[in-house]
């Protein structure tokens, strides 16, 4: 029997290798290609046939991060750094606000009646179904009237549409897995829900909280359309910064590639460091 299995095992192994090779090429080649493009000089970028070996240069990164000579002489802050600062403020602000608003709600839902929790879960999920423009086109008029247009507060508020549902759904699934018996002793001692949440649940649910915060941050960071409609010159996020490489007569490929790499950095670092938590968070806690 063992002898019979050997050729089959070999085809099995060959199939596996082929599968991995195809998967690896499809997933990783685009990232590899743009990464190398960001390190190429203009001549190497436009060369045909494409060049796989070249002398790397950090010129593209230097230009997008520190500006050209005229900007440096004038002491002007280069665009990409401004966009980066805006994105950091908006996305961290949005995540923090979502933790404050979402943590008690997630706890209440996880520990509340199961039926009501399920209904709430579907309602929260349904916020994902609305086309963004249906919400932000009317918000635009409201924002311009109230001065929220092109303000950090306004941007952080509208980003709750992304971060708050994610936060509640992911945290809810993590808190549900914490056995309720752990809380009993504290409850008998007369601790209120808020004390139990902060002193017992939060320390245990730390990985879940980390997962929810990372996912919410990345999805907020990746968003383009909110900035496109509701941000003016002051609060434009990094995803709009990368489009700047295209607004000139020609696309500045090297700068675009470098900006793309910079804007994708948080996601890539997070995916390598927190793979397991991210996997669970990406499915909104629907999958363990």
């Amino acid at each position, binding site marked *: 029997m063992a002898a019979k299995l050997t050729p089959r095992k070999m085809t099995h192994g060959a199939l596996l290798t082929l599968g991995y090779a195809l998967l690896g090429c499809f997933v990783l080649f685009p990232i590899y290609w743009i990464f190398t493009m960001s390190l190429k000089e203009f001549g190497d970028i436009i060369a045909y046939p494409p060049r796989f070996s070249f002398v790397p240069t950090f010129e593209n990164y230097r230009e997008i991060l520190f500006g050209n000579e005229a900007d440096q002489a004038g002491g002007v802050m280069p665009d990409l750094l401004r966009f980066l600062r805006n994105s950091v403020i908006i996305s961290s602000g949005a995540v923090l606000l979502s933790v404050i608003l979402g943590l008690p709600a997630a706890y209440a839902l996880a520990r509340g009646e199961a039926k009501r929790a399920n209904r709430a879960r579907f309602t929260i999920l349904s916020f994902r179904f609305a*086309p963004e423009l249906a919400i932000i086109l009317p918000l635009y008029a409201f924002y311009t009237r109230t001065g929220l247009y092109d303000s950090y507060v306004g941007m952080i508020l509208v980003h709750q549409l992304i971060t708050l549902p994610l936060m509640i759904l992911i945290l809810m699934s993590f808190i549900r897995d914490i056995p309720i018996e752990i809380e009993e002793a504290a409850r008998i001692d007369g601790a209120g829900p808020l004390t139990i949440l902060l002193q017992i649940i939060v320390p245990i649910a730390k990985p879940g909280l980390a997962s929810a915060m990372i996912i919410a941050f990345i999805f907020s960071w990746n968003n383009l359309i909110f900035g496109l409609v509701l941000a003016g010159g002051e609060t434009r996020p990094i995803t709009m910064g990368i489009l700047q490489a295209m607004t000139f007569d020609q696309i500045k490929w090297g700068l675009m590639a470098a900006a793309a790499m910079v804007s994708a950095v948080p996601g890539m670092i997070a995916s390598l460091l927190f793979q397991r938590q991210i996997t669970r968070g990406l499915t909104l806690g629907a999958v363990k």
Partner: protein
Amino acid sequence: MASAASGKGALAGGRVVYIAMLAPALCLLFLTIVPFLDGVYTSLTNEKLYAGVTRFVGFANYLKLAQNPTFWIALGNTLLYAGLATLIQIPLGLAVALLLDVPSKVQWFFRSTIALPLLIPPVVAGLMWKTMMQPQSGVLNWLLAQVGLPPFAWLSDPSTALVSIVLIDTWLFMPLAAIILLAGLQSISGEVLEAARIDGANAWQTIRHIKLQALKPYIVLVAMFRIPDALKSLEIIYATTRGGPLNATRTLHVMAYEEAYRWSSLGRAMAIVFILWVLSYIFSAILLTLWRKEETRFHGR
């Protein structure tokens, strides 16, 4: 499952739940219901983005859309995009999940890298692929030539543009399908698989009769994530074709954006997004019902 998931939990019936839900509910209501009502009204007016007198026009925007051939093209493109994306990404994600479920030495590497595209901004992914898809100088056509295939027109030809967009969408979101389905595969107990092996089931039979059956709720879950998102996909197209060439990639969401920002016709833009919203809502409602059914069947909840 945790004890709270079934029956009554510690906070059942308490006011605490309502108090805790108040702030997030107000926040989300402010961000959706207010714009929703405002938007419904706007779709019944001829409101322009920057100036002019706004007049109530009833259903004129909707009637005009019905007579506009571009609207029907955009509706078709929207459905085709979502259909293609789902029909490609679910089987492909399933294949990848089955591959990653096989124990091997490189498994860990692929499990950690597969999530990578999901964490890249869609607009960035659009630009990356647009670069590679250049018909004359792009690396993809060069790669095709290396294996003896003729060049492909990618985004530059009306007949191939939408498929190319779906390819970018697949690169971004197939990993999500794979991750969900892989989690489903790992939830199948070893005993069931062992029993099937003892009964003499081969690999194909095991996949068909055991794994696929167990994966059903997970497949519905993938569809629930993907279909609404694909229907309202905007950022990939914004970064690549902006609806062209010749309307080939003009979906409803893209058309609404153009109406608002190119023609500054807010009333018509709102009419389009509401039609899209209704469409998305119908599909989501069907999928939610399906998912609840599958979940009850498998978890007895």
